[in-house]
């Protein structure tokens, strides 16, 4: 009897704690409180690499950031992406503080929406150990499908106190009037949400506009 009661109380306690944590995180996110003051000398950074234009765009933003502050860097990209790796190696040729990890694609071009639910789930599960091991401080992404599972995992780990990280979402420059699917999802839990066209700030409820970044 006592064990049953104890288990019930414990689970109620956990559920309450997690709910409070999620509400606290969302409150901070929507209020725009996203400061991160690290005790270390650098911030472990994850870059979610997409394909083609997305990669070029994100790598250009990377090149403006202090490579010593945002280090070590982990690039996560899709399994079957060849050209992105060439671009990353080219940009990082003088550095050793970076790694490249590959995860399965969450959605292939022309794949049906129903089957993409399963592939996204698979990609999400695949991502968990990578994020747990690397323990990023910041995650940068700019809209390819691969970034949603990564950010979701990071956010959930943050909810259960495993991780304390910030998600920076930069909507691609090619989005002028509407948000991408990743953008629509991530505006709910990304800490910083950047758009590159002023008219987009009317479409989303918390976009920040700093001009064209790439």
């Amino acid at each position, binding site marked *: 009897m006592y064990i049953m009661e104890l288990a019930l109380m414990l689970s109620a306690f956990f559920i309450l704690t997690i709910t409070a944590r999620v509400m606290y995180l969302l409150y901070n996110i929507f209020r725009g409180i996203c400061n991160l003051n690290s005790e270390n000398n650098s911030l472990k950074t994850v870059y979610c690499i997409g394909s083609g234009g997305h990669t070029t765009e994100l790598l250009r933003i990377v090149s*403006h*950031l202090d490579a010593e502050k945002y280090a070590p860097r982990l690039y996560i990209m899709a399994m079957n992406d060849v050209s992105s790796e060439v671009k990353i190696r080219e940009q990082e040729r003088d550095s050793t503080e970076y790694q490249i990890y590959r995860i399965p694609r969450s959605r292939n071009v022309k794949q049906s929406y129903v089957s993409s639910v399963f592939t996204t789930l698979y990609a999400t599960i695949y991502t968990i150990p990578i994020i747990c091991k690397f323990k990023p401080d910041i995650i940068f992404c700019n809209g390819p499908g691969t970034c949603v599972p990564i950010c979701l995992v990071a956010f959930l780990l943050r909810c259960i106190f495993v991780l304390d990280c910030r998600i920076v979402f930069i909507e*691609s*420059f*090619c989005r*002028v009037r509407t948000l991408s699917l990743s953008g629509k999802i991530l505006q709910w839990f990304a800490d910083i949400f950047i758009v590159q066209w002023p008219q987009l700030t009317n479409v989303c409820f918390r976009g920040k506009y700093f001009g064209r*970044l*790439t």
Partner: protein
Amino acid sequence: MHTQYKKCFITVGTTRFDLLCQSIQQPAVLRALNKLGYREITFQIGNSDCEPGHYEKEGVKIEMYRFKDSLKEDMRSADLVISHAGAGSCLEALGENKPLLVVINEDLMDNHQMELAEQLHMSGNLYYCTCDTLNTLETVDFSWLSPLAKPTPNNFVKYLDSVFTVKNLSK
């Protein structure tokens, strides 16, 4: 009017664009290019359904290849760039200050790429058309275009540096 011949570079990025491959090779389009003084076309066809190789049609030399690590050289040596609506290719061409004609791929389901082409057309940085209207190319005056303003990432970087801090930066 045009004494020396000019080069045209066409790119479809990392995807495929079968209709553009067919449209470019139409006699009417090649004649229009020829009339404007373009005698050499370099065409990056990506995964399009087309055979790479060297061709000569309507007095225009066409070189087709699928991919290269960097398109910079081809882009630089061109006098006109024709591109798919991908942001990467558009920005690369505009970054090189090349006259740019964007061809919209109407087959793409989610045609958000058109947004960018339309917007940059409104600000006078490029022209755009579809495969059907490609042959109107000779009526286009590229000298009207203005260069794209440079990106301004500094405010964003400053903002990031103010919210994310580290103990001591070794500098």
